[in-house]
C-alpha cells in the first residue's frame, strides 16, 4: 500500500501550495506583454506605495545576485528581465506584499514601457537568414545537468544541431526502388499539472532554504548556489508532495526568481503561480518533422532520413536534450541499415520549451509511426505485416553503441493487436510502436536509519509526484530489513538530510533510487548484525533480522534490546548509507540506456462525418516493465500517460500568434476529460524480471504517451480514408479532410 494515498484521500497531504512559513510575504509576478522588446522604462512607484507592499523586485536589483543569468545548457536566462524581454509572460517584476490579494492588486500598478523589436514567431522565421538573433552571446555549459554540451551555432538562433548517422544514406537512396517522404507537425503542449508552480524562499543565518514543487531539487540547489554565491552546503531544498509535474517542474523553473524576491524583501516570500502563469512558464517543444524512407524492390527498408526542427522558445532550458532524444526516438524498433537524422532546436519569441514526459518522444513517434503506415498503404501491405518484416528482435542494436534491445517488439505488437481486435489479426485498427532510450544518469544516494523503537526513516531526494515512489521505496526497504512496511517512514525530500540524486524524471526513481535504498538497507543490515555480534557475543551467521528486531538463534530481541545491550541504555540508531554510480552492479549501469522504454499501442476510432469529431472507441497499451513493483500504480502510469497522449492527439495546442499566446489559459486549453476515455481499455504489462532494477524491474511511466496520436491517425486513415499529418486532429481538420476526400471521390 502506498503511504501517500491515505493522506491524499483524507485531505491531510501537504502540497507545496499548502505550506506556510513564519513571516512569509507573497509575491506576484508582473509579466512581459511583448514577445520581443527593449524595456525602456519602468515605474514601480505606485506599486511600492500601495497598501501592504513590502518591495518590488525588478531587473534594477541584479546587484543582489552573484550570477544574473542561469541555465542548464546555456546561461541564457536572466533571473529577472533587465533591459530586454524575449517572450510574452517573461517576468519583469515581482511585487511582494503581506497578502496575496494585496500583491495582486499592487502588481497592476507597475508600468512598463517597451520598445518593440522584430520577432521570431516561428522556427521558420528564426532560421531565416535575416532573422533577429535572440541571444547574441552564447555561453554553453558542459555536463551541468545532462551529460554533454549543446551544439548551437553562435550568431544564429540554433541552440542545438544534432546528427545521428549510420551507414550511407545517399547510396542507399540511389539504389532504391521507391522513396517515400512525408512531413508532420506537432504543436506546443502545456504540462497542465493540476497544482501550478509554487515555491517559498527564505534567507536566514543558515543560508537559503527553498520549499518547492521541484522534480530536480539538486539542480535547483546547484543553480541557486551559483546565482546567490552560496556554497551548496548553505542552500537547502525541501520538496513536499507535488501536485503533478510531467517534466514541467523538472530542471529549474521559478526558484531563482522567488529566491531573488525573498532576498530583496528581507523576509520569506511565497510565489504561487496561477494556472495561466504556469502555462507561460514552460511547455513541450513544438516540432516540424520531415521523414524519408528508401525501399528496395522487395519492399525492404534501405534507409531513413529525418529532419526535425523544434521550436525551443525564448530560453534553451533542457531543449538541447529534447532535440537529441527526438532524433533517437525517430528511429523506431526497426532494422534501418542506413540512417541520417538531424535534429535542430531553435530560439523563438515564445514560452520556453522544456522537458515533458518522454522528451522528444511523442513528436518523433507521431512522425515515424504515421510514416510507417503511409508506406504500408502505398505498398498495399497490412501495417502489421509491413512492421513485422522490419522489426528488431531482443538483443538487436537500435542505435550503434547503445545497449542492445532488451524487449521483444513482436510480443508487444501482437499483444496490442490481440487486445483491440479480439484475435482477428487483420481486423481493422490503428497501430503504433516505439522504442526510447531514457536519459538516466545512474547516480543516486540514500540513507536508511533504524531507530531503537523499530521505526525506520528513509532519506532520499526522490520526489512523490503521484507515481508512488514512496510506496516502492517503502516496500524495498521493508523486504530488505524483514520489517513490516508500516514501520518504514519515507521522509520528505530535503537536501539537508538526503544524499545527492539526479532528479525525479526519465522513468528513473523506482529503478535507481530503488537500487540505492536496497543497498542502503543492506548496509544497515550489515551494521545491525555487526553490532549484535559484539553486544551478544555471537557469530554474525547466527543472527538475522526478524519483524521488530533480530533473531539470535531461536531467541528474538527487539531493536531496543539490541541498543540496550550495546549502549547501556535502550537508545541509539544504526545508519545504512549507499550510493549508486555508473560503476555499481559490476559496471552494468555504465552502458546507456539502462533499459529501453518501449510501447505498443492499438486503437479503434469512430468519426462523426457531419462534425469531424473523433472518438476513441477501444485502446490497448503494452509496456515491458521487467517487474511491477506496485501493479495498480504501474497500470496507472501507463493509463495516465496514454490519456495525455490522447490530449496531444485530439485537443491540445498552445497557439502563438505573432508571439502572443492565444490558448494559454485553462478555459481555452482543452485537456482530456473522463468522457473522452472509452470503457474498452486494456493495459498489458509484460514482466520477465529482466531489468537491472530491484526485483528485475525496469523503469516505466513514459512509454504510454508515445503511441496514442499515431495509432489514432493510422486508424483514421485505414477506416475512414483520411490521413492527418498535423496535430491536434481537431474536428475542423478532420472534417476538412473528409470533405476533400468526398469532393475528390465525386
Amino acid at each position, binding site marked *: 500500500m502506498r503511504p501517500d494515498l491515505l493522506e*491524499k*484521500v483524507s*485531505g491531510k497531504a501537504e502540497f507545496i501550495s499548502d505550506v506556510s512559513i513564519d513571516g512569509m510575504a507573497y509575491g506576484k509576478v508582473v509579466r512581459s506583454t511583448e514577445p520581443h522588446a527593449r524595456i525602456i522604462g519602468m515605474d514601480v512607484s505606485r506599486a511600492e506605495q500601495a497598501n501592504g507592499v513590502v518591495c518590488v523586485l525588478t531587473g534594477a536589483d541584479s546587484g543582489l545576485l552573484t550570477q544574473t543569468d542561469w541555465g542548464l545548457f546555456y546561461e541564457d536566462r536572466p533571473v529577472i528581465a533587465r533591459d530586454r524581454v524575449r517572450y510574452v509572460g517573461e517576468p519583469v517584476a515581482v511585487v511582494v506584499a503581506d497578502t496575496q490579494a494585496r500583491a495582486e492588486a499592487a502588481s497592476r500598478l507597475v508600468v512598463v514601457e517597451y520598445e518593440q523589436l522584430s520577432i521570431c514567431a516561428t522556427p521558420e522565421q528564426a532560421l531565416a537568414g535575416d532573422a533577429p538573433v535572440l541571444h547574441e552571446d552564447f555561453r554553453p555549459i558542459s555536463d551541468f545537468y545532462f551529460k554533454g554540451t549543446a551544439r548551437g551555432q553562435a550568431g544564429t538562433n540554433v541552440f542545438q544541431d544534432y546528427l545521428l548517422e549510420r551507414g550511407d544514406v545517399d547510396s542507399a537512396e540511389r539504389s532504391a526502388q521507391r522513396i517515400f517522404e512525408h512531413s508532420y507537425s506537432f504543436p506546443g503542449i502545456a504540462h497542465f499539472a493540476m497544482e501550478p508552480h509554487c515555491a517559498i524562499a527564505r534567507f536566514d543565518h543558515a543560508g537559503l532554504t527553498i520549499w518547492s514543487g521541484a522534480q530536480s531539487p539538486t539542480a535547483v540547489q546547484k543553480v541557486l548556489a551559483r546565482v546567490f554565491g552560496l556554497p551548496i552546503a548553505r542552500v537547502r531544498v525541501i520538496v513536499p508532495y507535488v501536485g503533478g*509535474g510531467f517534466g514541467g517542474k523538472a530542471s529549474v523553473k521559478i526558484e531563482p526568481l522567488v529566491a531573488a524576491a525573498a532576498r530583496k524583501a528581507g523576509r520569506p516570500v511565497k510565489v504561487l503561480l496561477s*494556472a495561466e502563469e504556469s502555462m507561460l512558464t514552460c511547455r513541450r517543444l513544438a516540432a516540424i518533422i520531415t521523414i524519408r524512407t528508401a525501399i528496395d524492390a522487395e519492399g525492404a527498408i534501405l534507409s531513413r532520413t529525418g529532419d526535425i526542427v523544434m521550436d525551443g522558445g525564448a530560453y534553451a532550458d533542457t531543449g538541447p536534450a529534447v532535440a537529441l532524444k527526438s532524433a533517437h526516438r525517430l528511429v523506431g524498433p526497426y532494422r534501418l541499415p542506413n540512417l541520417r537524422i538531424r535534429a535542430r532546436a531553435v530560439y523563438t519569441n515564445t514560452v520556453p520549451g522544456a522537458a515533458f514526459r518522454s522528451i522528444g518522444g511523442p513528436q518523433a513517434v507521431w512522425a515515424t509511426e504515421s510514416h510507417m503506415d503511409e508506406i504500408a498503404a502505398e505498398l498495399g501491405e497490412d501495417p502489421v505485416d509491413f512492421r513485422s518484416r522490419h522489426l528488431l528482435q531482443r538483443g538487436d542494436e537500435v542505435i550503434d553503441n547503445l545497449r542492445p534491445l532488451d524487449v521483444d517488439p513482436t510480443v508487444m505488437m501482437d499483444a496490442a493487436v490481440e487486445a483491440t481486435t479480439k484475435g482477428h489479426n487483420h481486423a481493422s485498427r490503428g497501430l503504433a510502436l516505439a522504442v526510447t532510450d531514457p536519459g538516466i544518469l545512474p547516480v543516486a544516494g540514500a540513507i536508511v536509519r533504524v531507530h531503537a523503537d523499530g521505526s525506520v526513516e528513509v532519506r532520499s531526494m526522490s520526489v512523490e509526484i*503521484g507515481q508512488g515512489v514512496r510506496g516502492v521505496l517503502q516496500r524495498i526497504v521493508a523486504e530488505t530489513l524483514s520489517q513490516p512496511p508500516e514501520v518504514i517512514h519515507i521522509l520528505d525530500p530535503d537536501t539537508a538530510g538526503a544524499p545527492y540524486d539526479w532528479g525525479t524524471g526519465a522513468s528513473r526513481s523506482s529503478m535507481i533510487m530503488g537500487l540505492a535504498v536496497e543497498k542502503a538497507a543492506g548496509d544497515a543490515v550489515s551494521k545491525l548484525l555487526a553490532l549484535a555480534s559484539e553486544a551478544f557475543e555471537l557469530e554474525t551467521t547466527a543472527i538475522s533480522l526478524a519483524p521488530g528486531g533480530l533473531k539470535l538463534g531461536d531467541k528474538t530481541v527487539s531493536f531496543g534490546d539490541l541498543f540496550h545491550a550495546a549502549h547501556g541504555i535502550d537508545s541509539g540508531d544504526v545508519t545504512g548509507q549507499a550510493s549508486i554510480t555508473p560503476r555499481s552492479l559490476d559496471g552494468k549501469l555504465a552502458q546507456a540506456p539502462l533499459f529501453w522504454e518501449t510501447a505498443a499501442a492499438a486503437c479503434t476510432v469512430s468519426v462523426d462525418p457531419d462534425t469531424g469529431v473523433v472518438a476513441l472507441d477501444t485502446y490497448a497499451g503494452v509496456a515491458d516493465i521487467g517487474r511491477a513493483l506496485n501493479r*495498480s500504480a504501474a497500470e496507472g502510469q501507463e493509463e495516465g500517460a496514454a*490519456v495525455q497522449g490522447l490530449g496531444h492527439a485530439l485537443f491540445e495546442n498552445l497557439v502563438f500568434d505573432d508571439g502572443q499566446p492565444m490558448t494559454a489559459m485553462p478555459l481555452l486549453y482543452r485537456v482530456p476529460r*473522463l468522457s473522452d476515455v472509452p*470503457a474498452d481499455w486494456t493495459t498489458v504489462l509484460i514482466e520477465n524480471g529482466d531489468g537491472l532494477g530491484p526485483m528485475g524491474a525496469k523503469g516505466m511511466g513514459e512509454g504510454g504517451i508515445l503511441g496514442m496520436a499515431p495509432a489514432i491517425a493510422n486508424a483514421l486513415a485505414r477506416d475512414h480514408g483520411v490521413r492527418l499529418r498535423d496535430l491536434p486532429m481537431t474536428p475542423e481538420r478532420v472534417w476538412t479532410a473528409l470533405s476533400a476526400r468526398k469532393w475528390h471521390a465525386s
Partner: protein
Amino acid sequence: MDTSVGISVEINGALVSRSVPAETLLIDFLRDDMGLRSVKLSCDMEICGACTVLVDGLPMSSCTTLAADVDGSKVTTVEGLIIDGVLDPLQQAFIDHGAVQCGFCTPGFILAAKALLLRNPNPTRAEIVSALDGNICRCTGYTKIVEAIRHAASA
C-alpha cells in the same frame, strides 16, 4: 469599501458563525479561516473541479462561490467524510483501486462522486461519466477513478 457580512455555515457537521469581508471566496474561507487544506486551488475559473465541495449535498466550485452565498448551508469537504476515524467507502475505494496519483484533484473527485452516489446509489458508467466530466485529472487517465466509484457504489 470594507463591507463584512455575518455567515452561519455548518462545516463538516460543526456550526460556524463568522463575519467575513463580503468579497471572500468560499475556497479562501475554507482554506485560510477553517484550515481545510483539502480544498485545492487550480484553474481558479470553475473548469477543473479541484476546489469542489459539497453544499447541501451538491457539488460546487468553491473558487467561484462567495462564502456569503453558503450562509445557512451545510458544507462538506473530504475531511468531513471521515466518521470516527473510518474512511468513507469512496475514500477507501480510491485507495484500493489506485485511483489517486499526485492527489491534487482527488478531494474534488471524491466529493463529486459522493454527490452522485447520494442521489443515485447505483450509477451506470454513463452516469458516472456525466457526473464527473467537470473534474479534470491529469495523472490517472480516469480508468481507475471509474473503477473505484463503481466499486464503492456496489459495496
